[in-house]
């Protein structure tokens, strides 16, 4: 064992896989450790970026750290196997105890550490559970007095990730309540929301899951008159929408690779590339975010986008494969010089 004072915080570098846990038939947790004695210092809900070499090509993916910062010797990521998913399948097939990989982090702003409150409502769907799990484990480990309602949407009872651990937490922590919806028990709706959190307006809300799920949560909260400044969302690293989500979109996210930053993020067809990059912790030059100032003008090396700009780019620039990241939405996987 090392103590926190004896080692520097981890920022990036090589990691080694220590253990693999099967959670559901297609979800695994990978426990990763630094190769030198170091501690992970992160906020619960933050993510790290894995840099993998798959079939000779460098690939990057962001994964929420599902372990809490209260267990700082290891960082866990929890990955659902996605049909056809390049990285999730590679991790399931190749990441075994002893395997080395590289990662950067921690990154991200989606954390209750940034929004301290007396009461929280955590709403997740599918693998959106992972940041909530890190937050809940942290509060549990610290015997934190906060009042937490954690409502998770899943396709079926068999698909509920962390179910037994959450049952244990709910049974032993006085302030944490856990509920599951989905499958036969019905979807998250205004009635169930009011049932689980009658004091909704007193809570800080965290929402994470597929885009359709988060859109539904946002409009539900807006309909309830909830102050949306107290709604915090995270959307990036989810491989596929789940059936439990209200208006989950088929097709999912596209892969957007930034060659200069050497980062790859995911971006669905309704999200401007700049917004997706920003959510993934990648800051690119930009100003107006309305297609006017041209600050985010870059070259599209591969793929195609839909772009509704406001004069910040000229037709002949578009002919030369220039795009404005702030108003370009992917129509397929993209490679961008930025």
């Amino acid at each position, binding site marked *: 064992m090392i103590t926190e004072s004896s080692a520097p915080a981890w920022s990036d570098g090589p990691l080694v896989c220590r253990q693999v846990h099967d959670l559901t038939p297609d979800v695994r947790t990978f426990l990763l450790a630094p190769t030198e004695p170091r501690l992970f210092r992160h906020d619960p809900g933050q993510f790290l970026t894995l840099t993998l070499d798959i079939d000779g090509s460098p690939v990057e993916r962001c994964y929420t750290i599902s372990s809490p910062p209260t267990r700082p010797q290891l960082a866990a990521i929890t990955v659902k196997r996605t049909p056809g998913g390049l990285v999730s399948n590679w991790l399931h097939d190749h990441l075994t105890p002893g395997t080395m990989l590289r990662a950067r982090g921690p990154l991200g702003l989606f954390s209750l550490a940034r929004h301290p409150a007396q009461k929280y409502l955590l709403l997740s769907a599918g693998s959106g559970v992972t940041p909530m799990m890190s937050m809940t484990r942290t509060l549990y480990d610290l015997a934190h007095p906060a009042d937490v309602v954690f409502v998770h949407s899943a396709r079926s009872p068999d698909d509920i990730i962390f179910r037994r651990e959450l049952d244990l937490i709910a049974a032993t922590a006085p302030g944490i309540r856990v509920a599951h919806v989905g499958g036969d028990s019905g979807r998250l709706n205004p009635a169930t929301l009011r049932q689980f959190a009658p004091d909704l307006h007193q809570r800080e809300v965290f929402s994470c899951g597929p885009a359709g799920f988060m859109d539904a949560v946002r409009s539900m909260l807006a309909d309830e008159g909830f102050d949306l400044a107290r709604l915090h969302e995270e959307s990036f690293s989810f491989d596929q929408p789940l059936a439990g989500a209200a208006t989950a979109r088929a097709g999912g996210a596209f892969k957007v690779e930034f060659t200069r930053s050497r980062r790859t993020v995911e971006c669905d067809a309704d999200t401007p590339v700049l917004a997706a990059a920003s959510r993934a912790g990648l800051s690119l030059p930009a*100003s*107006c975010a*309305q297609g*006017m*100032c*041209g*600050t985010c*003008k870059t070259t599209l090396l591969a793929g195609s986008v839909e772009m509704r*700009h*406001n*004069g*910040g*780019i*000229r037709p*002949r*620039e578009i002919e030369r494969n220039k795009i404005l990241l702030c108003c370009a939405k992917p129509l397929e996987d993209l490679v961008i010089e930025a």
Partner: protein
Amino acid sequence: MNARTPAADLGGLVARRTAGQSLEAPFYVGEDFFGLDVEAVFARHWLFVAAEAELPEPGDYVTVNVGPYSVIVVRDDDEAVQAFHNVCRHRGARILNEERGSVGNIVCGYHRWTYGVDGKLLHAESQAPGFDPSCFGLRSVHVRSVAGLVFICLAEEPPADFDEVAARIARYIEPHNLRQAKVATQIDLVENGNWKLTMENNRECYHCGGHPELQCSLFPIYGYAEEDIPPVLRPAYERYLKADDEARGTYESLGLPYEAIEELDTRTTGFRIQREPLDLAGESFTEDGTAACRRLLADFPTGRLGRLSLHMQPNAWFHFMADHAITFSVIPLAADRTLVRTTWLVHPDAVEGVDYDLDTLTRVWTATNDQDAVFVARAQQGVTSPAYLPGPYSPTEYQVEAFVNWYVTRLRAHLEQ
């Protein structure tokens, strides 16, 4: 007389200028006169700054710096040419810092204030709730395109006679289709002399013996009255008379205006325009007078149209031939440094290396400009000497006198205000 004449003497020097003589030294060497020239001449009159062909598409711009001023000339989304002060309405930063380029919108690099190419403020991040963007558009500068030639005027109230001048010269120029032309090349030359020496030098052909390339096709009797023709120029004069007679027939059959209009110092917007023949093949400024571009600027039935030449006070001259056009813009940089920007325009579909050879197209005027730069630098060095005294203009230099008279008249008008 020396360069350090106190500012208080400016008016006195202007008042006592003797007609028919070159100016006293302070006009050419003094920093205070440079400041007065910018204020009274360049900030008050119409300046030729670009050919429209330099701004072929919406978003294309050139920046023009005149003394402390910087102006953005840009083609807007409706294909019209606009001009704005190159000063951000936020805290005044210069917005566009390149000489030319292309923009979507006009964006200040300092805090990203974003203006449309119509000058409207479109975006200013993080402003107070009561902020009204409509109050912070770019300050416009008067701009006019005359048959494809872009003029700006920095004055709040530009000279009112420009409309009339524009209409009269447009008749001559429009047949050359310059609005559709393309820039074959542009060359910037910095002459080590006062801008007035540059303009004076261009207004006479007394020195044309120093331009062997130019003299191949330009009749070197420019500015000469018949009785002043020296014996050495007599054969050229006789060729000129013959060519002129033939040329008038051509111009009349094609309906091309050719008569000289010479109002160099009798109005605020002084100008001179005339269509006249060239020597040898009579088509272009080349060593044998043949066209330098196979594709003519317009659908002319002959390439033998000589040159349509235009002078504009205070800063430009032009030659328009059947096959190409050349524009010259003069911008003062300092009391003893002047930018001469020369632009060669050809038909938009003319292909370099196929329809024209760039070296052939530019050879005569590149050589002539270089020779003129030497003359102007020598003149600047000479007038800087304490020994310099103003000397008399020859009758063949009457247009130099007209230029200087126009200039002094404009200074007097300014100083009387």
